């Protein structure tokens, strides 16, 4: 090995260590940012090390790629709004997976004929996972952005067709592995994997996106790790595995928070079945006027805000913070209760509220805040529905039975901000809305909240 190769390997080792330290820093908001600087340094070193340590023949393509990528990357970093974070993340899963798949195809073109069985196997995984994650993530991004309708797309015999596609994909993988000279098998696998990615995500509704995002995250990471196996590059294996396991852990957490299994999310087609099976909760919903609601809030001792995806769509995070600060100014204790699957990706609500300057010490997780609802005067539900549905706890026949919820119905009084009288995303009836101590406040969350704030000022 030449000196430059040693240098390159050294940068890889340092980068690996810095990556792990960066993720360790993520265990606390105070240390997270410093940790990420380490990771950035590690990444920079690894890139420089590669450019010095490899025999680069032509710089043109590299410079073109780096320039275009940096411009788009910087644009994203500066201008993508926090409400669009889920689709941005889905898109980046697609990009990462595409890079892995393309590197795999390139390796196949350059060294396909001389690969051993083990490398071929890793290559197959890399290309297959990479390709299906690319299209799957693009569909997810489209659904999250609203380009594609968020409702699950389902048709008769869907699972059977998917099974056939899956078998074709794995079949051509095995065939390619056994007969590496048959180039067609490799490209069939690639093409079918692209199709499979689409089929995997279209039957899944937007509300299940936190799970899907985490799963795709995991796949993208594992594709990168497989690239490491193909190239015999340890830093790729380490970084890819960290990414893959992070996604896996998040998917498990998200599934737990919905009391569902991963298979159920992927093949269950949640959203559409339910509409038929939902129970009719009796009673009337009571509407409350802005002034009465403001009065309740202004004279409360403890208020808990419960944000849901509706807060994000209405861009109401700043409005809720303003109202919260006004109430605090009057001596009201204000807290925010965040359900693990509120929003469209893990931690989505926390980011939005942090953007609006809500201090993270006021953001509470489900387990921490649930015991506090009985001593809470007013719980304000903003565009959340299923995560506060008491049926999940009380009605064993409910389709979301067993899903852990925020127990807002135990608060002394509940105000629900809702766009209209319609049902939530899952189509389930929510008995919370019919309870004696629940009052409804209809309208766009953002304007309702700012009107509430004005009314509170005049109390």
């Amino acid at each position, binding site marked *: 090995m030449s000196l430059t190769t040693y240098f390159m390997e050294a940068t890889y080792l340092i980068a690996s260590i810095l990556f792990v330290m960066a993720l360790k820093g993520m265990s606390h908001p105070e240390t997270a940012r410093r940790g990420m600087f380490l990771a950035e340094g590690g990444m920079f070193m690894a890139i420089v090390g590669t450019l010095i340590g490899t025999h680069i023949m032509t710089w043109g393509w590299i410079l073109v790629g780096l320039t275009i990528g940096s411009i788009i990357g910087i644009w994203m970093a500066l201008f993508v709004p926090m409400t669009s974070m889920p689709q941005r993340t889905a898109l980046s899963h697609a990009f990462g997976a595409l890079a892995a798949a393309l590197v795999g195809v390139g390796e196949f073109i350059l060294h396909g004929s001389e690969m051993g069985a083990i490398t071929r196997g890793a290559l197959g995984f890399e290309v297959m996972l990479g390709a299906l994650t690319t299209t799957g993530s693009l569909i997810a991004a489209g659904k999250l952005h609203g380009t594609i309708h968020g409702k699950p797309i389902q048709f008769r015999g869907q699972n059977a067709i998917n099974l056939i596609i899956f078998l074709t994909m794995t079949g051509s993988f095995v065939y390619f592995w056994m007969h590496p000279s048959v180039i067609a098998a490799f490209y069939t696998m690639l093409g079918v994997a692209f199709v499979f990615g689409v089929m995997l995500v279209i039957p899944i509704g937007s509300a299940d996106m936190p799970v899907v995002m985490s799963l795709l995250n995991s796949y993208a990471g594992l594709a990168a790790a497989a690239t490491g196996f193909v190239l015999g590059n340890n830093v790729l*294996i380490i970084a890819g595995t960290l990414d893959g396991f992070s996604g896996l852990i998040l998917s498990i957490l998200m599934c737990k928070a919905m009391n569902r299994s991963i298979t159920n999310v992927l093949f269950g087609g949640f959203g559409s079945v339910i509409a038929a099976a939902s129970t009719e909760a009796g009673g009337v919903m009571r509407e409350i006027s802005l002034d009465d609601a403001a009065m309740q809030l202004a004279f409360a001792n403890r208020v808990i805000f419960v944000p849901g995806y509706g807060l994000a769509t209405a861009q109401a995070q700043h409005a809720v913070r303003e109202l919260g600060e006004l109430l605090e100014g009057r001596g009201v204790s204000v807290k925010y209760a965040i359900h693990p699957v509120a929003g469209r990706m893990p931690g989505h609500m926390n980011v939005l509220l942090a953007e609006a300057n809500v201090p993270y010490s006021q953001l509470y997780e489900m387990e921490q805040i649930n015991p506090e609802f009985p001593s809470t005067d007013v719980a304000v539900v903003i565009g959340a529905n299923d995560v506060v549905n008491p049926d999940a706890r009380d009605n064993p026949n409910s389709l979301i039975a067993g899903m852990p919820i925020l127990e807002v119905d135990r608060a002394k009084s509940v105000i629900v901000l809702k766009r209209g009288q319609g049902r939530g995303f899952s189509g389930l009836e929510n008995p919370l809305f019919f309870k004696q101590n629940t009052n409804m406040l209809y309208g766009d969350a953002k304007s309702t909240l700012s009107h509430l704030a004005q009314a509170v000022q005049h109390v």
Partner: protein
Amino acid sequence: MNPAVLIASVYVFALAAFLGYQVISRVPPLLHTPLMSATNAISGISLIGSLVLAGAGSSRVAHMLGCVAVTTATINVVGGFGITDRMLKMFGKRKDEGKKTPAAEASK
């Protein structure tokens, strides 16, 4: 890839998986979005594989595939780190303002 290298790689994979599990399960739900975008940026390290593909070989097709891969991987690295930092900056500011010790941080 000879068997010795494969075994070493499997060791690396297994240990990284274990380490990843240990480290990531300590990340509070508060930071799950930045976590996802951070691990994404980090796995943009596949950029180094793309660089080699785009510049080292002699195949024109490989160079072009590599160029696209370099582009998408760079978007992830630059955009991912940039956006993660933007988010983490938001969590850092206005830390307490005389508030009692944050209870949210004592995750579980």
